[in-house]
């Protein structure tokens, strides 16, 4: 690819706040071809009846400001412009937005939890969250999605110069939930962003975390863990858009699948634009397919439009449990089920250790254990 070639997909190439700018997806489009539209409950074509039903509850650190604002709040939509139909639908449909502000030079003394609780999958709801971390501030945030819902939302993380934001987003929905979400982080100069996504529950979850940089020195680390059971569709679509020099990104997503029609989709797009010299990026996806009938689609895309990168790479692998691992453990007397549990646990262990909040770490560990006991 020549330096003059336009990248295939960037954040701002096709973005709009207006639903009408995006045709209703048919399933043939590149960005929709993996998603079962028939299970979207009308989120993609505007037929979802908006009745609310997702209650947002914030338990904030004392230093953090929490506001519930109307659609007209000027701060909303600054960090992110919707890049697809559902995102634009959510942006033009939400009634109230939650704004979290971490004042400049402030380090939050504990983590802030935003709980989004769905009250039933019969109704559709749209949401919007803005997390603004002002210069040199630091915070840890948990987004905890529970209950049942048909829910589409946009979450903006605006991380200013020298600030640090660590986010854990748990998709721990009931079995019938449908959730389509965009998480966008905009990083200022020398800003640090750590995202940890855990998707376990829901009939269909399609989460699109993306990152853009406004100045050099931005550092993004996106980690994800998912466990897909029979009939579930769990999709993660990553996009890191390196448009300024000397920024760093690292993407590591790992998933396990078990049961008939368990379907995982992972798309990892990384773009290093011509002006983004000195970029250092790596992305990795691993899928562990535990039973027949499960399917993982994994598509890393790395587009490099400059010759001056510090590092760029990607890796993707999907496969079964390694017989040699199981043999080794069993040859030491460990029964098959326990050996299997140890190996799968090991597959996720290094990721789970990275979760900032101990009680969330414990919850994810026991959720994985519970999945293995199924």
């Amino acid at each position, binding site marked *: 690819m020549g330096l003059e070639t336009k990248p295939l997909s960037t954040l701002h190439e096709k973005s709009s706040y207006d639903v009408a700018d995006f045709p209703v997806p048919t399933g043939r489009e590149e960005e929709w071809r993996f998603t079962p539209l028939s299970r979207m409950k009308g989120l993609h074509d505007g037929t979802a009846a908006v009745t609310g039903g997702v209650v947002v509850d914030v338990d904030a650190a004392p230093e953090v400001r929490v506001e519930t604002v109307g659609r007209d709040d000027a701060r909303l939509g600054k960090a992110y412009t919707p890049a697809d139909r559902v995102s634009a639908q959510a942006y033009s449909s939400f009634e109230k937005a939650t704004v979290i502000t971490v004042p400049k030079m402030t380090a939050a003394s504990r983590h802030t939890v935003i709980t989004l609780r769905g009250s039933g999958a019969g109704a559709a709801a749209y949401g919007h969250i803005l997390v603004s971390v002002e210069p040199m501030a630091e915070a840890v945030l948990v987004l905890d999605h529970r209950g049942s819902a048909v829910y589409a939302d946009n979450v903006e993380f605006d991380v200013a110069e020298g600030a640090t934001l660590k986010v854990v987003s748990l998709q721990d929905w009931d079995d019938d939930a449908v959730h389509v979400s965009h998480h966008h982080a905009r990083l200022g100069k020398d800003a640090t962003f750590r995202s940890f996504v855990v998707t376990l529950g829901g009939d269909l979850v399609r989460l699109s975390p993306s990152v853009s940089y406004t100045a050099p020195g931005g550092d993004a680390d996106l980690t994800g863990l998912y466990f897909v059971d029979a009939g579930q569709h769990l999709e993660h679509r990553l996009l890191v858009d390196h448009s300024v020099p000397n920024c760093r990104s690292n993407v590591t997503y790992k998933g396990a699948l078990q049961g008939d029609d368990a379907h995982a989709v992972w798309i990892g797009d990384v773009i290093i634009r011509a002006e983004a010299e000195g970029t250092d990026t790596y992305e990795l996806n691993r899928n562990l397919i535990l039973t027949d009938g499960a399917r993982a689609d994994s598509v890393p895309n790395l587009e490099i439009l400059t010759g001056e990168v510090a590092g760029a790479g990607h890796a993707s692998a999907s496969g079964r449990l390694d017989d040699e691992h199981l043999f080794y453990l*069993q*040859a030491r*007397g460990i*029964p*098959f089920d326990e050996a299997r549990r140890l190996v799968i*646990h*090991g*597959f996720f262990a290094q990721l789970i250790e990275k979760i900032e909040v101990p009680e969330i770490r414990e919850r994810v560990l026991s959720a994985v254990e519970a999945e293995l006991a199924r």
Partner: protein
Amino acid sequence: MSTLEIRDLHVAVGDKEILRGVDLTVRSGETHAIMGPNGSGKSTLAYAVAGHPKYTVTSGSVLLDGEDLLEMSVDERARAGLFLAMQYPVEVPGVSVSNFLRSAITAVRGEAPKLRDFAKELKAGMDGLSIDPAFAQRNTNEGFSGGEKKRHEILQLELLKPKIAVLDETDSGLDVDALRVVSEGINRFRASGDTGVLLITHYTRILRYVKPDFVHVFAAGRVVEEGGPELADKLENEGYEAYTTKASA
């Protein structure tokens, strides 16, 4: 007193027959060395007895104290008292040495050791093999050098205290110092009680440290000569040539 009894064992990998009727009896208190050229089926014997799925037993029997090992799963064989120290120990990502060993000890002994006792036991075992205690927190065999892997195999041997231990080329890839440390571990295990050892090796080097009572020469999938320690000396001087030409003739 334990006995491992291998009778007329035939083993294939896919369609290819590798073992062609092996007879061997190992009793506790005895150390047997199996020696032979590359490709003679030594490792196949070790893996087949341990139950690796790649190897198919086509006929014959393997009994441990009268119990049919071939009817057991891999983990049942280990719990029955069989141990295989592997030539190429497997790296298990994300499973720490400590977690792995505690799970193994719990399985083999039938109850979980108290955490304090386990920590003590592990430390003593590691000290005896000059293993850095920091390894307890590392992932099993991941990034270990060849010598470190072999030391960990012997650590497992000493902790799990099997009735019969099969050591598959434990000496390969070791420098002199590591060979000495590993051999001392094997000798401690031999001295610790009623245990039998089946030592598989290509070279006579380890037999200077671990003295065998019986030496069996393996060629083309069966035992072609048997004797005492003096047979190892003969092999040291003459090599395997006599057996390989005989076997292929």
